[in-house]
Structure formats: structure tokens, C-alpha cells
């Protein structure tokens, strides 16, 4: 890929990481029947993965500017609050699915897409430091994206979305990565100062989505102790995964 001009390289690497997100749907190929309990436990899994990812984002943002990160986080909370209301006001259709389920599915795709914006900026600014580490950075981000696809699929699949569509929505949610990587590579200085806000926004949106949509769902049908175990173990696994890779 090094024969391509740098700008195209940044885009292509960003695209590769987006495609990796689709791999997150794969584990659901093996799930046959999906009961209300399964929905509770997949919500718990998605919650843990998203909380773990937010942890990584927050600590990254804190290094760049703790206050800016938290301002961003509060904006992220408001964003999910507003988006949840707006989506609830419209008669939504998500594939063949309508009503409350459709609202929830649209919201998770939206939140994860918005969170990819911050990641795209992170890729672009990282590449601006030189493309010598490009492969390493790309591989790391691509691997990070797989559990994010898993989180999306864990919400969509139990509500009747097909496997291919789960992979498709996962990839779609990561498309802002290549799209944003390019301008932030070009205008690295102005984007770098926005990065902590963006990172905070992504973390705040994900945490709030977990607290308002996913966890209440999970606790409604699943056993409390099992959900708590699933969420906390998935969270630790995600944090370890991100810190060591």
C-alpha cells in the first residue's frame, strides 16, 4: 500500500478498519434461537464492551485535556438524550421492525457511528505523525473495532436483524473513520485541539446509551447477578484488550 499517495493510504487504512467492524457480527452466526433472556444477556454484553471502550477513550482524552474531555462527555449525554427523544417522536422503521425496538436499534447505530467520528480523527492525527507506524496503528484500530461490531450486533441480532445486515450496519457505523481520517490528516493542528472534545463526546454518548437504553432492558428480563457479571467481565476484557494491543 506504500506505493499509493499518503492521502489515499490514510483513507484506505481507515476503510480497512471500518471493514473489520463487520467481523463483530460473526459470533452471532452460531446463535440459533433468541429468547427474551438472550436479549437481556446480549444487552449486558454490549453494555460491558461499550463501558470498556469508554474507559479507554476517557483515559486517552484525559491525557489531552481532562476538562475538554468532560465538556465533550456532557455534550455526548445531551446528544443521546435528544436523539432518543427525536427518534421516539417519529414512526420509525428499521428493516421490517417498528416501534420501540426500531428506535433502540437506530439509536445504537447512531451512537456508534458518532463515536467513530472521534476515532477517525484519532487515526488521521496519528498518521500525521508519519506513516511509518501506519500498519501498526491500523491493525490496532481494526482489532478494536471488532468488539464494537459485536456490541452493535448484540443489540440488532436478537431483535431479528439478519446476520449480513448486522455486519453491514456495523461497517456503516465505522465509515466515519476513513471519511474523517482524511481531513484530520490534512488539517492536523485544528483537529488535534478538537480531539479531546470528540473523544469525550464519544465516551459520554456510549455511557449514557448503556445507562438509559441497554442496562434497563437487561435488568428487566435477566437475572441481576448474571447481568452484573457479564457487564463487568466484558468491561474488564475490553479494557485489557485495548490496553495491551
Amino acid at each position, binding site marked *: 500500500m506504500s506505493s499509493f499517495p499518503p492521502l489515499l493510504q490514510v483513507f484506505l487504512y481507515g476503510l480497512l478498519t471500518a471493514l473489520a467492524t463487520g467481523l463483530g457480527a460473526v459470533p452471532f452466526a452460531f446463535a440459533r434461537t433468541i429468547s427474551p433472556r438472550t436479549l437481556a444477556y446480549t444487552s449486558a454484553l454490549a453494555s460491558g464492551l461499550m463501558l470498556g471502550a469508554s474507559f479507554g477513550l476517557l483515559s486517552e482524552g484525559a491525557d489531552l485535556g481532562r*476538562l475538554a474531555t468532560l465538556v465533550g462527555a456532557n455534550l455526548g449525554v445531551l446528544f443521546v438524550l435528544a436523539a432518543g427523544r427525536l427518534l421516539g417522536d417519529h414512526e420509525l422503521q428499521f428493516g421490517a421492525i417498528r416501534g420501540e425496538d426500531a428506535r433502540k436499534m437506530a439509536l445504537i447505530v447512531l451512537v456508534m457511528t458518532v463515536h467513530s467520528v472521534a476515532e477517525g480523527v484519532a487515526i488521521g492525527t496519528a498518521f500525521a505523525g508519519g506513516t511509518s507506524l501506519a500498519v501498526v496503528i491500523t491493525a490496532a484500530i481494526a482489532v478494536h473495532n471488532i468488539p464494537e461490531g459485536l456490541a452493535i450486533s448484540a443489540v440488532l441480532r436478537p431483535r431479528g436483524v439478519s446476520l449480513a445486515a448486522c455486519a453491514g450496519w456495523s461497517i456503516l457505523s465505522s465509515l466515519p473513520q476513513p471519511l474523517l481520517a482524511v481531513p484530520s490528516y490534512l488539517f492536523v493542528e485544528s483537529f488535534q485541539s478538537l480531539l479531546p472534545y470528540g473523544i469525550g463526546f464519544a465516551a459520554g454518548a456510549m455511557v449514557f446509551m448503556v445507562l438509559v437504553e441497554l442496562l434497563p432492558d437487561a435488568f428487566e428480563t435477566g437475572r441481576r447477578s448474571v447481568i452484573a457479571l457479564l457487564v463487568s467481565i466484558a468491561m474488564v476484557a475490553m479494557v485489557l484488550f485495548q490496553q*495491551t494491543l
Partner: protein
Amino acid sequence: MEPILVVLAFATLSAFMAPIGVLPLRTRQAVPSAWIGWANSLAAGFMLGTAYLLAEIALIGHPVRAAVGGLLGIGYAYLSHLASGVEDVDLNRLEDVDPLYGYRILFVGGLHGAMEGLAIGLAMLESLPFGILVALALAVHNIPEAAILGSVLRSAGLGVSRTAGLAVAANVGQVLFAVVAFAVVPAIPGLLPWALGFAAGGLSYLVLSELLPQAYERAGPVSIGLVTSVATGFVVLLGGLAG
């Protein structure tokens, strides 16, 4: 003041916040249900923020030890819930309470106290201002806990002042654990990242298994989500200032 006395003082102060939760009993028999939900989510946010700050320190240089410590903390909290039979019991009930329920409340209070004490002691090791922040953040959790315990004891016919005294006594474990953690952990080389991870994992599990599900039963998810996330962010911000 000697650092260990600072630990003792603030862990004790945190335990003495408990009687605030008993105060409403002087005028009314019970607090409104939604208030208990919000108090729980405030405590959940403060605990999550504390867990975040502890994990942040633990992960520097030792991600694997911190993560394994976290899993041990989760496992410990899960098993002790399981062993005491409280894992799926609503511990915020104010009506139809019996002595067994009262013992369970006390037991869970003790379990929380141990985790919170550990967190305070470890945070004090990082820096005293950070430790004081954690002690104050976790003190908030003792208030709704005492409100629940208080209404159980009141329904058993106990006076308000004795109820307040017992609410403090239920948190003595916290003081003990804070002081012991502060004194013992640095004496054992390499233990710190494990211990930090353990406390962070244990606190997260307690939030997820008790505080949040109980909060959702008493107030809407939006208000619970807002209180929890803002409280978490507040502690994370102050943690940055306290170093």
C-alpha cells in the same frame, strides 16, 4: 498530621455521614421511593467514578495485573453475594421487612464497607487529596444505605438515636479496611496494581448488581442515567485535579 491519621480521620468521617440517611425518620416513617432511586444512582455514579480513577492508576505499566485483580474483585463480590443469598434480593424494600432481611442489609453494608475502605486506603496511597476525594465520594453512598437500614430498624421498634448509632456501626468495617489497606499494601512489593484492580472491579460489580438495578425500579431510566453519568464525570474531573 501523620498520613495514616488522615486516612483514619476521613474514613471515619465517611462512616459518620450515615446518620444523615436516618434523619428523615425523625419526621416521617419513610423516604419517597424515587428519592431512594436517585440517591442510589448518585452513589452509583460516585462509585463508578472512583472505580475509573483507581483503574486508571492500576493500568499504568501493569494492565494484566490490574485486569486480573479486577476479575478477582468481581468474583469476590459475586461469590459473597451468592453465599449470603442476596444476589437477586431487592435490598431497598421499606415495607414488610423481617429480621432475616435486616441481617442481609447489614451483611451487604459490611461487604460494601470493605470494598469502600479498600478504595479509600489505596487512593490515599496515591495521594492524600485524592484519597480524601474518594472518601467523600463514597461517603455519599453510606447515606441511602443508612436510610434503608434505618427504616428496617425503626420498624423493629428501635429509637432514632440508636438507629443512627447502628448505622455508623455498620460502616466500621470501612474504617478498618481503609487503615489496613493503607498500612499493609505498600509493605508487600508488587501488590498495588492487583489491589487497585481488585477494588475497581469489586466497586463496578456492586454498582451493576445492586445500585443500578434497584435505582431503575424506583425512577425512570433517563433520570437515573443522567444522575449516574453526571456524578461519574464529576468524580473523574475532581480526580484529575486531585492528582
